């Protein structure tokens, strides 16, 4: 019983935190866009415009809900639901902190640590493609369909390279559990130092998976009106847009836990604090890393223009995947060499 209560509370906290972070990511996106373009950005709703996400959300709720006559009503509603659900499901396996010791029992700050954690993320993210595809298909609009086809082909293409980048990581860590991967990076033994090429591949693929610039072809306004969400209005559109920000938050969390040490930080043993304090400090630092990567996502968005579709496919299939294979081979040699099984 106690187990369920704790897990339920954790699920609620993670869900609410990801919603909150996503809401304020929309604000941060607009502010950062403004600052990078020498503007001020939203500053009218509340102090520094801090109530802007609330105003935006309220606006979305107040908008008229339109379902096109020729749209498949069931699928049309299902699309944003899948998108939102898969976006908020990936937060389950991320270790947000080491854990707290209360009255002699240990509570890890993680909803569940499944031994195939990374595969779970890939599985759930792949379902996310259905959210876009179903939404685009059900709209019965050529632009939506084009956007959806682009989105799904892009996400499938980049998932391959992403999976291969992860395979190289798993070869060095020897586990699929995200918690164990993070624990192995204790102090400054971060995976970025053993997998420099893997990091670049993974981050680029994460951009493509989140449909962020320079890979935001699915909603390429200049060509496709609005892409897969052309026909969507009101909160259903809000869900699509919001899911993108949750995905960004989760990708930032996954990048920082897989390659940048998660809740570990340098000189963790030299501080001489109690384990509970260290754990809390670790969580704060983990969130710092996440926010940095969210900032990085936005920073890149306001720097690089969009790829052309054939350039995107060329990059995915003819550069990323061969590079990922080279990375796997190199990692294999490195692992054998480290274990002393390779003799020259």
């Amino acid at each position: 019983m106690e187990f369920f209560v704790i897990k339920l509370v954790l699920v609620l906290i993670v869900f609410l935190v990801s919603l909150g972070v996503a809401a304020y990511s929309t604000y941060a996106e607009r502010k950062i866009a403004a600052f990078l373009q020498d503007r001020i950005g939203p500053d009218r709703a509340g102090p520094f415009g801090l109530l802007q996400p609330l105003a935006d959300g309220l606006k979305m709720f107040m908008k008229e809900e339109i379902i096109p006559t020729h749209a498949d009503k069931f699928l049309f509603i299902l699309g944003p639901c899948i998108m939102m659900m898969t976006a908020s499901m990936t937060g389950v396996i991320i270790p947000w902190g080491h854990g707290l010791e209360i009255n002699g029992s240990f509570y890890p700050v993680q909803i569940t640590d499944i031994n195939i954690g990374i595969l779970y993320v890939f599985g759930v993210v792949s379902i996310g493609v259905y959210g876009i595809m179903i939404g685009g298909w059900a709209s019965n609009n050529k632009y939506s369909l084009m956007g959806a086809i682009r989105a799904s082909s892009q996400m499938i293409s980049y998932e391959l390279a992403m999976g291969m980048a992860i395979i190289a990581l798993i070869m060095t860590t020897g586990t699929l559990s995200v918690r164990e991967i993070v624990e192995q990076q204790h102090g400054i033994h971060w995976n970025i130092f053993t997998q420099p090429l893997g990091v670049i591949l993974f981050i680029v693929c994460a951009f493509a998976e989140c449909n962020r610039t320079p890979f935001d072809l699915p909603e390429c306004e200049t060509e496709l009106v609005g892409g897969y969400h052309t026909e969507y209005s009101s909160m259903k559109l809000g869900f699509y847009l919001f899911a993108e920000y949750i995905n960004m938050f989760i990708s930032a969390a996954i990048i920082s836990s897989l390659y940048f040490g998660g809740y570990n930080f340098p000189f963790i043993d030299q501080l001489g604090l109690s384990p509970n304090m260290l754990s809390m400090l670790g969580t704060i630092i983990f969130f710092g890393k996440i926010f940095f990567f969210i900032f990085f996502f936005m920073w890149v968005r306001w720097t690089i223009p969009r790829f052309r579709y054939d350039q995107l496919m060329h990059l995915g299939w003819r550069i990323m995947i061969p590079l990922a294979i080279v990375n796997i081979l190199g990692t294999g040699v490195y692992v054998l060499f480290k274990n002393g099984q390779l003799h020259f």
Partner: protein
Amino acid sequence: MQLTNRSKVVVNKEMTFAEKIYLPAVLSGLAITIKHLFKKSATIKYPEQTRPVSENYRGMHVLKRDEQGRENCTACGLCAVACPAEAITMTSAERKKGEDHLYREEKYAEVYEINMLRCIFCGLCEEACPKEAIFLTDRLVPSDFVRTNFIYGKDKLLEGTSAELRVDVSKRINAHRKL
């Protein structure tokens, strides 16, 4: 004929390896954008802040009164004739007994309208006026949702009688004297 040295010949050359991996270009782009993060923003928060305008700026008109608070305008119609945009219309009326404190001369403008959507703010009305009744000021014409609201009558153009409602046009008068 080549006028400037700024034109560049387009060459469709093969990208070098460094260009093909994109990352150096991406990083230099990121460096440029991050520099802008620390630059001062160019925004002017309009209703609270306004841009500094030139001394003889030509903005919204004002119909002046004399020192005793009487309207200067005699509805002669010279401004309407001078107006290249045909934005000014008026109806004249005769001053009645007991209205001496309202109008300076025996004829006055009962209706005086400027269509602010037609007006090109050239200032010719001001030059044409023999009575120093109309001036352009450094005030801006505010935006609106309805076209008819842009036809400004005497209620919006005429300055008030009390000292704080008077509109200062000394800068415009000085500008004219300089000419």
